Each structure stands twice: as C-alpha cells, then as structure tokens.
C-alpha cells in the first residue's frame, strides 16, 4: 500500500471503511441540460459558455456519490467568465498570429509558453478549491514554480521543434517563377525532420509522469495529503504497452484490409458500390482504432495513476477494465456520429459512470473524523478556462 513516508506511521492502519463511488446521473437528463445550455451558448456567441460549464460540472459532481455523499461544485460562473474571455482572446491571438507570419507566430508561442504553466497551476487550484465533499473543500497544494518545472519538458520539446524548423527552412526564397532546382531529399533534412518526432515520442512518458506526479502529490482534503508512488519506469512500461496495442491494431487492420482487397481482386472487377463500401470501412476502422487505442490508454492510465495515489488514511483502488472502456468508446462514438452529435451527452454520462464506478476508496479512519485544515485556498478562475481548453483535467 503506497504511503507518503514523511506523513505517517510505517504500517498503515487497516482499511476499516470502504467508500464506493456511485454515479447517479442519467443520459436523458443531461441531454436536456446540454441542449438548453448549448442553445444559450450559441445564441450569445459563446459568452454563456462559462455558465453552461458550471452547470455541467455541478451536474456531474452532484451525481457522483462517494460513500453515499455527493460531491459538490460551487464555482462562481462570473469569475470563470473573466478567465474564459482572457484565455479565448489569448488563443485567438495565438492561432491568428501563425497565419500572419513566422515571426508573429514565434512571439505568440513564446507568450503562450510563458503563461501556460501559470494558467495550468491556477486551473488546478480553482477546480479543487471549488470541489467539496461532506462540507469539506478539496485543495491543490502544488506551487507555481513546480508547474513551470513540469511544463518545461513539453515547452522545451516544442521549442526544439521550432528551432529545427527555422534551421531547415531555406535561407532565401527562390526567385519567383524561376524553375526551382530539382529538390532531392537531403539526409540531413530528413534526420532533422525526424528528430523532434523521436524526441517527442521518447519524452512523452516522462512528461506524462511529471504531470501526473505533480497532480497526484498535491491533492488534499482535511489533513489528508496525497502521495504518489508510481515510478518513471512504470510509465515507460505503460507507454510501451500502448505502443504495442497500437501496433497490434494496425497489423490487424492491414490483415483485414489485405483480405478485403484480395476479395475484390478475386471477383475480377470492382463492384459498383465499392467506393461507398470502402468509405464505410474506413470510418469503422477509424472508430475501432480510436476506441481500442484510446480506451486502452485511458483505462490503464486511470488504474496506474489512482492505484498509486494514497494519503495517510486514504487510498484508491481503481479496477477499470480496458476492454470495457474500449467497447463503450466504440458505441459512444458510433452513436454520436450517427446522431450527428445528439448522443454526445449520453456518451459523456455513460463514460463517467463506467470510469467512476470502477473506483473505490479505502479509508483507514472513519471518514466522519476528517477535519478541515485551517485557512481557505484562494481561487483563480482564469486558469480553469485554460485547463479546459488545453485538455488537462483531473482525469477522473
């Protein structure tokens, strides 16, 4: 059982209490919430978005019961509104700058890179500080400095990529309409082009580990501070297994595709509906790959990360089966595409139920005895919008 050695006794107290997670939300109800708020968001050109988001988070939190008591979310949408506008402006400037010129894009990249870690940090603080259970508020105890240290890895890789692109780019553009010299692939260019990709692939597990470690070491409720005891090696193992699954799926598809083509070849001519059939096969293939690879990745990551998270008296037990999540993702995506997106809220509810109900919390003390720590965390809502847009969530 993982424990923070600095925090408590060498042998943990036996798990006297088991808190089960239950998700009581319903797809049809969330559909109604979603559609009404979506309309409001579109009619207000996006300005209603933070209010819709608070409603969504409130619904999902409130429908999540831990040991019979629901979670609560109590952020002030007006605070989130300011943050949302700020981040939206920043991202609009960023995506626009890249169109205008390389220099403008570079400047925008530097600005976003400089602000991003701070935004992520406040996003974590904000989200945790506004989540409650049994009247106690959660806390995120990481520091801004740590956030910069974690984000230095992806920003460094991205910067490497930018610098290499600038190096590879020709020094002067060729004279217009002069027939350009026949370009032969130079080995140096190819290596320079592949290097960032290789670096990215190799650095990804390291970054993921830093990110998850940073988050899961700094959750707190009352006097309980979580620790994270999953080593870097296990993240690389996790990563390799995922690459393996991806490779297997790919090989499977090459096999199936080969059989398909062989079948076509055997009939001698292509049937009239062949392009339609090929398109449908391609879409289905995409869904299967997306579900298998994505489902496996998400399920295993949840188990890996939460099973390695514990505080002095609490530990987590996540038993999400990869094949269950992959199956659910497949049907979710298929129905969402078939219904032109209307199934989306049902998909979200189904996914939340499966992922949450796979988790149990073992408590070495009676949860009644948890006591709030003194002082209240401040809240910075600007970051929440950033966390939302950049896709870093708490992962449960």
């Amino acid at each position, binding site marked *: 059982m993982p424990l923070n050695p600095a925090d408590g006794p060498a042998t943990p107290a036996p798990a006297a209490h088991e808190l089960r997670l239950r998700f*009581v939300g319903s797809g049809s109800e969330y559909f109604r919430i979603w559609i009404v708020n*979506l309309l409001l968001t*579109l009619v207000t050109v996006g300005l209603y978005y933070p209010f819709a988001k608070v409603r969504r988070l*409130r619904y999902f939190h409130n429908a999540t019961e831990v040991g019979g008591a629901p979670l609560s979310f109590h952020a002030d949408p007006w605070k989130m509104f300011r943050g949302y506008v700020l981040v939206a402006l920043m991202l609009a400037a960023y995506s626009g700058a890249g169109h205008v010129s390389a220099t403008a894009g570079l400047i925008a990249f530097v600005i976003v890179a400089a602000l991003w870690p701070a935004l992520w940090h406040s996003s974590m603080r904000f989200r945790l500080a506004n989540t*409650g259970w049994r*009247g106690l508020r959660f806390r995120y105890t990481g520091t801004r400095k740590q956030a910069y240290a974690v984000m230095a890895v992806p920003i460094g890789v991205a910067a490497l990529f930018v610098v290499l692109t600038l190096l590879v780019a020709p020094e002067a553009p060729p004279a217009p309409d002069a027939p350009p010299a026949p370009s032969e692939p130079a080995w140096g260019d190819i290596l320079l082009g592949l290097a960032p990709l290789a670096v990215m692939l190799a650095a990804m597990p390291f970054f993921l580990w830093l990110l998850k470690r940073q988050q899961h070491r700094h959750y707190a409720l009352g006097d309980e501070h979580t620790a994270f005891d999953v080593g870097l090696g296990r993240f690389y193992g996790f990563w390799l297994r995922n690459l393996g699954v991806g490779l297997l799926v790919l090989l499977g598809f090459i096999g199936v595709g080969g059989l398909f083509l062989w079948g076509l070849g055997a009939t001698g001519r292509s049937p009239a509906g062949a392009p339609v059939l090929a398109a449908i096969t391609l879409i289905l293939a995409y869904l299967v790959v997306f579900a298998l690879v994505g489902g496996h990745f998400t399920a295993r990551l949840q188990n890996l990360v939460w099973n390695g998270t514990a505080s002095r008296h609490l530990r987590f037990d996540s038993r999400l089966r990869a094949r269950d999540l992959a199956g659910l993702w497949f049907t979710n995506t298929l129905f969402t595409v078939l219904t032109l997106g209307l199934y989306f809220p049902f998909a979200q509810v189904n996914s939340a139920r499966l992922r949450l109900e796979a988790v149990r919390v073992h408590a070495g003390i009676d949860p*009644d*005895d948890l006591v709030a720590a003194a002082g209240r965390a401040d809240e910075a809502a600007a970051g929440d919008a950033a966390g939302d847009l950049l*896709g870093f969530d708490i992962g449960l």
Partner: protein
Amino acid sequence: MPAPIAATWYDGTHARGRAVQAEADGGTLWLLDEAGGRHGLALRDVQWPERTRHGQRVAQLTHGGSLVFADAAVFDTWRQRLGHRESWVVRAQQHWRATFAALAGLVLVGVVGYVWGVPWAARGVVAVTPADVEQAIGDSALAQLKDGLFKPTKVPPAVQAQWRDRLGTALQRAYPEGPARWELHFAGGGALGANAVALPGGHIVITDELLELLQGADDAVLGVLAHEHGHVRRRHGLNAVVRFGLVSAATSVALGDFSAVIAGVPALLAHMGYSRDAEREADADAAYVLQAAGRDPAAMVLLFERMAGRAKKAREADERGDGALPIAFASHPADEERIRFFRTYRDTARQGPGTKSPPLN
C-alpha cells in the same frame, strides 16, 4: 409555512454530518438537531441547488459547510411551498417539450448562422483586415502549395512574361482606376491537374496542364486569369480563410471535446457551399474584363467544354480525380448555368449600360 424536512448538515470543519430538520421562517433558516439544539442561518447565505431529476440536493452555506437533502422530491416540494420560482433555464431543462424547442432553436440558429451570420461576420472581419496581413497569409499559403502540391513549371519565361503583359493590359483597360494588386505564377499542377487558383494577397497560379488544355484558345486563358483576378479583387481567398475559422470555432464550442471527429465536416461544407456565389461573381468579372479587352466572353465556353471532355476521359480511364483544393477552379463543375452566362453575356451587356465594372458586393 411548510413543515420542516430532513437534512444532513455539514459544518464545513468536520466531515461528520449531523441529522437535522430544516425549517424556514422569514429570513432565517432554522436547523433543529436531535438533541434539541436550534441553529439559525440567514437565508441569503444559502446557495440553493438547481432542480434536477436524479441525485441528492446539496445547498452551499456561504460561511462554509453544506446541507444535503437526500430526498430530492421532498426538498423540491418544500422549496416550492416556500415560494421559490425557478429560472426559466432550469424549468426548460426539466421538460422534454422545452428541450425539443431548444433543439429546434439550435437547428434554426445553425441554419441562420450558416446562411447569413457567417458570411456577414466574415465580410466584417475581411473589411478590417489590413492588406499586409492578407499578403502574409497569401505568401505563406503560396509557399506551402509550391512545396507540397505544385511541381516546377515548364512554361518558358518569355511565354510567362507574355501572359503577364496581356493580363496587365486587359485589367488596366477594364479597371482604369487600377486593378487590385496581383502576381501571376506558373506551376505544374501535380494532383490538381488542369487548374487555376487565386490565393489571398493577389497570388494567381495557373497550371501548365490548363495552359496545355487551352492551347490555341488564348481568350479563354485570359478569361480564366480575369476570373482569378476577380477572386483577388473581391478578397474571396481571405474571406474563405475567415469563414473556415469562424465555422470551426463555432463547431468546437458546440461540440466541445468531440470536435476532432465532427468539427471538420461542417467547416468543409461551409467552404464548398459558399464558393458558388464567389464563383458567380468572379465569372462576372471575367466576362467584363474580356468584353473590355474587346474579346468575346463566349470564348470561356471552350474552357468548360474542354474541361468536361477531359473529365469524361478521366472517368473512362478510371484515373483519380482532381485534388481536394476547394478554391481551385476545376472543383466547381462547369454547369449549364455558367456556360449560358458567358454565351449570352455580350447580348445582355449591349442592351445594358455595358461599360461599368461589376460592383464589389
């Protein structure tokens, strides 16, 4: 005053809940615990939950702590008896009829936004975009196309210069006030085949294949170039970029994290749907320029005929079709309407005032 109801009270310091009876009286919420204690809270310090069908009700207390009402139905009745009116958003969320109305409204907003909103907003954005920004966008697009799609041209520089001359003269005659800034490029079409493209910032590209196809039909080539100049003059390229951005932004807001799968589709549709009007406008410019240069706009008919012949041949040979670049000339099937337009242009122009250039919107 409604009867008190059961709740669990968490004080915000201890996770241990206390079973209480909640009762509202005037501006005060009274919590009566089992030991007979009575705790009063100002009602304005309670943030009540919105009604949902499932789950328990959690009320937040501003000074810390919360009240959990396990029986949601009892709570909702109690709140109603206390005279609480729900916001119409919350009421709409509870009713299927309102939900379907919202769905219909969503479709309506989508259609209105797609047909009028996006073009209107795009015109506004294009109008305020400085020329050098557009130039920069066009330059980088051209560089990308030259790198990826186009092949080096085989047209001799002398012939290139000749075409630049002809187009320049024709445009000068058609627009005495000065044509829009343009730059003519020649390139091998690659996957695009016989085609012509206008990019933001005045870049016009004609492929070797199209010149070959229109061998001997110089007026048609001039017409094609004037058509592309029409796109340049009306800033259609920038308009398309802006529209694409607007539609993708709207879809990603609407569909959230699901955008990766679906968001691309409407954006593409928007692009293809809108360009028909743009084509019509550029056609009008082409006919006008040809007319002003003393050529017969009907020469353009040859282009559509040869394109159609080539496409037919391509189908028969089971080749792959033209590349997927929606701004390219050949992506818009030569339809009867366009042929008729060029064929009858001279007659209609004679009847009308005739010498004015087509208005910019």
